């Protein structure tokens, strides 16, 4: 009997090529053993100013430069390329959505906005050429930061009053009335700054126009091949069938490589067709900082009413979201904050309203967690404030507000990011709480804190809970093809950025089909293999493509059994498939291997190979009927799509113990613990890897990383020297992990997404632990030692209540 691979820590198949330096990333396309032949390179002139009108662009000196092939500015764009880029996800509340042009038209709205596009023999010459372009500007006052955007003394876009792109209010019950009547009331102001995904590989695109067959091939480092394909077709006025998009190996995404599309994803194919040459654009690190998306920047005001037990009666949240200069991805991030803020709790009455604001900074699109870290931070800080106000244990206040295991499915009464009801499918929050308390040593901490205090040391503990809607629709598909060699070729359309899809999807196929794991080869993100697909974001790949692959393998198996039953003169019910061999149960000698079944599935029986010769001993089909029966197809394939009713909701809890240095205010992590529930695990090794990475990214976001814009809209820390991404030295030596497996009833495998979870509670959990160590409120994240030092000095001058802005109800 073949051992089930679902749930086992299978080593990754993709590692073999990565470890040998044989991965194929987008900048590697077109490079052979003799180097890179015949590929032209692009460079982009980017605005050095945050807000300016463009008076003139002079490119005269560019074409004199040897090795330069072409230069484009807005005036050279025609047809759909001259229109604004798409507003990919419109929303009725987004009354003032604005998108940029592929190359700036008349004005620039952030440092880094693309103005001109040069193609040359190599990147060095292309950059030389960019340096020769002269642009005259009329400077406009920049709007930087949420406060300035709200004050609206200056406008980012002349025709957007108050810099407000959108205002959206959602109500469940009557929160203001419930708060007014509640026994206790608190108000909090909570801030989170901007950060960014920062994958190790920046963006990149290569395109080749094949004039012989009128076809465009695009390789791009994207999270959505099909989206880029549709965008290229529309913008270049090609039929969809003329465009192939292939996503090769991708050096990390974390959200920023989502498609809307990026200007270069259109400009590169445009240039390739115009010049009849392969053209490559590879973003450098500074470009990534100033022209690829950021996220996280939000300011929140919370009013909460509760009773003596800490039970919520009403929650009223107003927040302001900084979406940067443009809104190509709509309101996804603030909508997720609005809805996912609720976490595992029942607020009874909830009102949430946000304004999404323009600033003269890089645009905002989802970054791992996508608005959830802000929501979790807001809710969990509120829980901590209630506990402090009532003098209760922080876990008790959380526990009284939990949705209970027997209350699922639980409808929060709101509309989620996918336009469907915010209905949680399953979970067990009280069990998670017990696990996290045990894992971090919650009940023993007060003794530890006292003993450390006696030694002159400050330590604090924090805990945060989250619920994450994962596996959002609308669909993914899969195609499984069993070749005559017995090898199983699997394709799914979404892309891969390091999640080990080639391994976990092969596990699912091997389990369902009964073939050997080694015979399965998985291809992702190639529109030639799977033209209908959505993409890899929102922790959806395992749930969506995993389920689709499982279903497609099931279909292929049905066909295998039907043909094999005919060949072996047995009933399909009596057959089993083990290690790629179909046999009659209890009679192992009566067997046929998958490769031979594949030969039999095709009535065109040329004896190309040994498998075909071997197949001649079997006879299938009815000689009185057509060789391919009605309602059947030649070939041994299975194809299916998975489209769930709604998202499945994963959950988890993090806890941390920190020490803060009494003199320097340096923050040290003593212990970090994670309890994670993503339903059934396909590969626990890969899930834990995702958690490790998420926690590290969260530590970066909570303690180190921020986008340091000055008042003129210059990003002062646009390098890895100044934007402080954690090295191993900033990450604790161990991260304690415990799993809970509450299966989802919404998909055949009972799985939930796991990709983003690790980063969601970080700001909340560190703010809580530092507050516990210091004894004054932490309401702005990230926090550096200098800021903590400042807060200490201020708290000595003007002692602050431990309940921020707490006002008891009359």
């Amino acid at each position, binding site marked *: 009997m073949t051992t089930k691979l679902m749930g086992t*820590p299978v*080593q*990754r198949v993709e*590692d*073999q090529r*990565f*470890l*040998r*330096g*044989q*991965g*194929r*990333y987008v*900048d*590697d396309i077109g*490079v*052979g*053993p*003799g*180097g*890179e032949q015949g590929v032209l390179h692009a460079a982009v002139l980017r605005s050095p100013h945050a807000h300016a009108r463009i008076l003139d662009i002079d490119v005269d000196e560019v074409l004199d*430069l*040897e*090795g330069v092939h072409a230069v484009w500015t807005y005036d050279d764009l025609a047809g759909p390329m001259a229109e604004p880029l798409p507003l990919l996800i419109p929303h009725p509340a987004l009354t003032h959505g604005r998108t940029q042009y592929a190359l700036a038209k008349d004005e620039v709205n952030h440092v880094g906005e693309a103005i001109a596009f040069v193609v040359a023999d*190599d*990147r*060095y010459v292309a950059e030389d050429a960019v340096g020769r372009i002269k642009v005259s500007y009329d400077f406009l006052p920049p709007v930087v930061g949420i406060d300035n955007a709200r004050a609206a003394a200056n406008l980012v876009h002349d025709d957007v009053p108050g810099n407000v792109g959108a205002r959206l209010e959602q109500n469940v019950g009557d929160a203001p009335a419930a708060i007014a009547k509640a026994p206790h009331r608190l108000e909090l102001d909570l801030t989170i700054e901007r950060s960014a995904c*920062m*994958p*190790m*590989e920046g963006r990149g695109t290569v395109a080749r126009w094949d004039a012989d067959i009128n076809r465009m091939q695009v390789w791009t480092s994207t999270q959505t091949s099909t989206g880029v394909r549709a965008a290229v077709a529309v913008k270049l006025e090609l039929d969809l069938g003329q465009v192939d998009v292939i996503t090769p*190996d*991708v*050096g*990390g995404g*974390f959200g920023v490589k989502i498609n809307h599309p990026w200007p270069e994803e259109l400009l590169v194919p445009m240039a390739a067709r115009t010049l009849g040459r392969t053209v490559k654009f590879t973003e*450098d*690190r500074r470009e990534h900082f100033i022209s690829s998306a950021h996220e996280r920047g939000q300011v929140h005001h919370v009013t909460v009413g509760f009773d003596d037990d800490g039970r919520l009666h009403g929650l009223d949240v107003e927040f302001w979201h900084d979406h940067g200069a443009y809104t190509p991805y709509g309101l996804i991030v603030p909508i997720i904050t609005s809805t996912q803020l609720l976490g595992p709790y029942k607020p009874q009455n909830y009102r949430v309203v946000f304004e999404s604001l323009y600033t003269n900074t890089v645009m905002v699109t989802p970054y791992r967690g996508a608005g959830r870290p802000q929501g979790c931070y807001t809710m969990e800080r509120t829980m901590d404030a209630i506990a402090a106000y009532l003098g209760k244990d922080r876990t008790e206040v959380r526990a009284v507000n939990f949705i209970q295991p027997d209350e699922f499915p639980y409808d929060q009464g709101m509309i989620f990011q996918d336009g469907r009801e915010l209905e949680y499918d399953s979970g067990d929050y009280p069990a998670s709480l017990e696990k996290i308390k045990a894992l971090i040593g919650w009940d023993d901490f007060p003794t530890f804190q006292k003993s450390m205090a006696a030694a002159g040391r400050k330590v604090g503990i924090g805990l945060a809970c989250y619920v994450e809607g994962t596996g959002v629709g609308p669909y993914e598909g899969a195609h499984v093809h069993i070749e005559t060699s017995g090898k199983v070729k699997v394709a799914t359309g979404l892309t891969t*950025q*390091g999640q*080990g899809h080639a391994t976990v999807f092969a596990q699912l196929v091997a389990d369902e089909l009964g073939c050997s794991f080694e015979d399965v080869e998985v291809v992702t993100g190639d529109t030639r293999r799977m033209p209908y697909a959505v993409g890899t974001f929102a922790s959806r790949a395992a749930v969506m493509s995993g389920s689709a692959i499982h279903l497609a393998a099931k279909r292929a198996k049905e066909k295998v059994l039907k043909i094999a039953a005919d060949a072996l003169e047995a009933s399909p019910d009596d057959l089993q498939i083990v290690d790629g061999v179909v046999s009659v149960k209890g009679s192992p000698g009566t067997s046929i291997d998958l490769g031979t079944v594949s030969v039999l599935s095709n009535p065109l029986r040329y004896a190309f190979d040994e498998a075909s010769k071997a197949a001649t001993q079997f006879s299938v089909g009815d000689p009185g009927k057509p060789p391919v029966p009605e309602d059947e197809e030649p070939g041994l394939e299975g194809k299916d799509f998975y489209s769930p009713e709604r998202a499945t909701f994963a959950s988890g809890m993090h806890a941390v113990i920190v020490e803060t240095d009494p003199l320097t205010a340096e923050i040290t992590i003593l212990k970090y613990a994670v309890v994670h529930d993503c339903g059934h695990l396909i590969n626990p090794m890969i899930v834990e*890897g995702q*958690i*490790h*990475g*998420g926690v*590290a*990214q969260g530590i970066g976001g909570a303690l180190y990383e921020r986008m340091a814009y000055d008042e003129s809209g210059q990003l002062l820390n646009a*390098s*890895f*020297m100044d934007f402080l*991404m954690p*090295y*191993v*030295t900033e*990450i604790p*030596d*161990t*991260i304690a992990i415990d799993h809970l497996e509450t299966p989802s009833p919404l998909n055949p495998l009972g799985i939930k997404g796991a990709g983003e979870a*690790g980063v969601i509670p970080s700001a909340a959990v560190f703010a809580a632990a530092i507050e516990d160590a210091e004894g004054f409120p932490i309401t702005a994240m990230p926090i550096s030692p200098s800021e903590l030092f400042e807060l200490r000095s201020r708290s000595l001058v003007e002692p602050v209540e431990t309940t921020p802005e707490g006002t008891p109800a009359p």
Partner: protein
Amino acid sequence: MTDELHDVRMTVNGVAHDVRVPARRLLSDALRHDLGLTGTHVGCEHGVCGACTVLVDGRPMRSCLMFAVSAVDAEITTVEGLTGADGSLGPVQQAFAECHGLQCGFCTPGFLTTITAGLRENPHPTHEECRDMIAGNLCRCTGYQNIVKAVERAAELVSTSSTTGEGAGSTTGAGSTSDGETA
């Protein structure tokens, strides 16, 4: 204006290559785009992330901070050269596979070369020394937990293989290539 070209002979993974490059061409670009060794990755081009680390005369160097012309007559080892002559994974590579020390794989070549040099210098590192060994390389996917484990595992594998006569990260043998002239 055309850049003056310079003839540079460098030995990469035991194979001599002759390239003609402008003085400003980075070693990382020469390896990737002139020699076709795309295993070396460029993550920041300012020497901070470590993805482009190669061994120059056995020492880890950021190939984005070195000009190709300064590699004249140097012996360079890239990630491709860490694999055994028979195509088997070298000990550091093997340890990464066993410990799930990589996700997207983009930073990995720099870690592999750095650790290879690190274990040559210190074949029996303590846990703290394993962490220190990788403290100059950025990874955005793994949170480093499994990379530290991989360093410890690689040290085990190296000490096992050295008792059987194989070195850490043995390079492939010398020969000639299509782009270069002779070995």
